[in-house]
């Protein structure tokens, strides 16, 4: 009997574990190690953050789902990996620390034959002074990164609405809280949901909305922007985004590295080197991401963390990490199999794998401060990669160690993204976009780097209906209800 251990139960880890359990059956064991007791459909946290959904609608208990799937679930966080075993144990193992009520702090070594690192990110609030610290979110801003954060965001948001109803003008500042953030899309979605809710509450004229982000141009989204077909033109996402911001009367600051957050004020540095300050009454700033801080040790106890992980804490995979400057980047730099180059039985998927470099062109201010989005690895790509990695491992377990690995390069993969701007079935709208491929391939698609037959975007009710359907469809799939395997990632 082989044992596959999956670290993390988010979109990527959950997809990998559930497919592996299905493909392997009871002849082999799948173990999931995740510190959370609940699964969270993170895209819908946006609606929780404006009071249109409850926390219960975007989360569910993992234990009964894993029990149904025959998965051995350990509510714990991974602390370290011993890919060669130790002087006492010959098999590789992971050291975990329980977070389960009643067993908090207890540790255990879990041996494995194959390991998937899908731990997701550490929300690195501490990277920006005042945004938070090692314990998480600070007191001056809100976040929608977790369901609990979103509940808190809504509580603060409702207070602002009450103030506006009493005649007090409020300023909303939404965006990214550091020069190296990703997930601009989540903040983009949140600001337009805020705007929609303010209109609904009849207080839009009492609010000033402003966007602040590390993108060098509006509509970069961490993927270097995109060109989409519209009315016979290949239109840049810059035009698309600027048009929407103008339509909703939202001003913006771009190319900004937020370096300090205080009560009611952020300080930032721009790409041109100038410094600025912006006041706010309500602010949601996405934190930068880092690896969760897993350590790795050789058999003799030597620390080999730097061999297994990149400096940012994400696991090294089959990517080209020495691609050099932007001019030398190629689509082929991006990983295909997500296998660790040192230990062939270790894989990483979702946010946990170390990308070879950003997708957006790296930039820095004259002061040397890097200000550019880091590459997104969430949502659809995250699920597809998780499934491909599970497929590779299952093949190796069932067919032998020489079974070919499955590939899921982000340079050969598209993504569908629906950013809602309000929740009502007939009064909400959404920006529906597809991008193909996620990582531009300028050799295959000269100019735009993408196939404009499959890269498009439009705003309307239709996208909004799709967003609603996706919410229910993906929660259905994650709960492993009837027909779950038929729902694509």
């Amino acid at each position, binding site marked *: 009997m082989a044992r596959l251990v999956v670290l993390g139960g988010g979109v990527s880890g959950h997809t990998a574990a559930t497919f592996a359990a299905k493909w392997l059956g009871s002849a082999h064991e799948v173990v999931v190690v995740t510190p959370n007791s609940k699964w969270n459909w993170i895209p819908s946290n946006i609606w929780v953050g404006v009071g249109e959904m409850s926390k219960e609608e975007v989360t569910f208990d993992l234990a009964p789902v894993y029990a149904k799937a025959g998965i051995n679930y350990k509510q714990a966080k991974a602390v370290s990996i011993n890919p060669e075993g130790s002087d006492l144990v010959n098999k590789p193992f992971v050291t975990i620390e329980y977070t389960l009520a009643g067993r908090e702090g207890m540790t255990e070594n879990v041996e494995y034959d194959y390991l998937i690192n899908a731990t997701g990110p550490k929300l690195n609030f501490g990277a920006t002074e005042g945004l938070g610290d090692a314990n998480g979110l600070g007191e001056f801003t809100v976040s929608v990164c977790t369901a609990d954060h979103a509940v808190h965001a809504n509580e603060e948001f409702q207070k602002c609405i009450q103030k506006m109803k009493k005649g007090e003008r409020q300023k909303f500042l939404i965006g990214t809280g550091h020069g190296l953030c990703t997930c601009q899309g989540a903040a983009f979605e949140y600001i337009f949901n805020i705007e929609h809710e303010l209109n609904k509450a009849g207080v839009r004229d009492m609010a000033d909305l402003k966007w602040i982000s590390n993108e060098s141009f509006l509509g970069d989204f961490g993927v270097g922007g995109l060109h989409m077909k519209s009315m016979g033109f290949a239109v840049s996402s810059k035009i698309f985004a600027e048009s929407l911001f103008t339509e909703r009367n939202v001003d*913006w600051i771009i190319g900004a590295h937020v370096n300090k957050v205080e009560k009611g004020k952020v300080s930032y540095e721009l790409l041109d080197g100038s410094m600025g300050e912006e006041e706010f009454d309500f602010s949601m700033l996405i934190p930068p991401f880092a690896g969760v801080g897993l350590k790795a040790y050789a058999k003799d106890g030597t620390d080999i963390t730097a061999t297994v992980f990149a400096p940012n804490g994400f696991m090294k995979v089959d990517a080209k990490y020495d691609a050099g400057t932007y001019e030398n980047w190629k689509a082929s730099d991006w990983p295909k199999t997500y296998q660790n180059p040192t230990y062939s039985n270790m894989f990483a998927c979702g946010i946990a794998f170390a990308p070879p470099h950003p997708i957006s062109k790296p930039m820095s201010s004259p002061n040397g401060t890097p200000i550019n989005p880091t590459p997104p690895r969430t949502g659809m790509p995250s699920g597809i990669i998780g499934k491909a990695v599970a497929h590779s491992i299952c093949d190796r377990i069932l067919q032998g160690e020489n079974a070919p690995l499955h590939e899921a390069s982000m340079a050969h993969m598209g*993504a569908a993204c629906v950013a809602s701007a309000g929740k009502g079935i007939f009064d909400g709208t959404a920006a529906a976009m597809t991008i193909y491929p996620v990582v531009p391939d300028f050799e295959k698609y000269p100019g735009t780097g993408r196939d404009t037959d499959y890269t498009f975007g439009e705003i309307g009710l239709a996208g909004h*209906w*799709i967003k609603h359907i996706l919410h229910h469809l993906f929660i259905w799939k994650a709960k492993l209800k009837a027909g779950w395997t038929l729902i694509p990632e």
Partner: protein
Amino acid sequence: MSKKVEHNIKAYGNNFTTMTPGPFAIKLRTCKIWQFIRFIIINIKMLVVVRKSH
């Protein structure tokens, strides 16, 4: 129909060089019949992208 969106443009401000939707384009975004047609088309397009990605 109102040209309200155009009023949001600020001369030589951030949004001075972008394009803005006219009243008809905005109306289409919430026109249920048109959006139902778009719903079918967007779904097909997304399914094609999903299929190409697996």
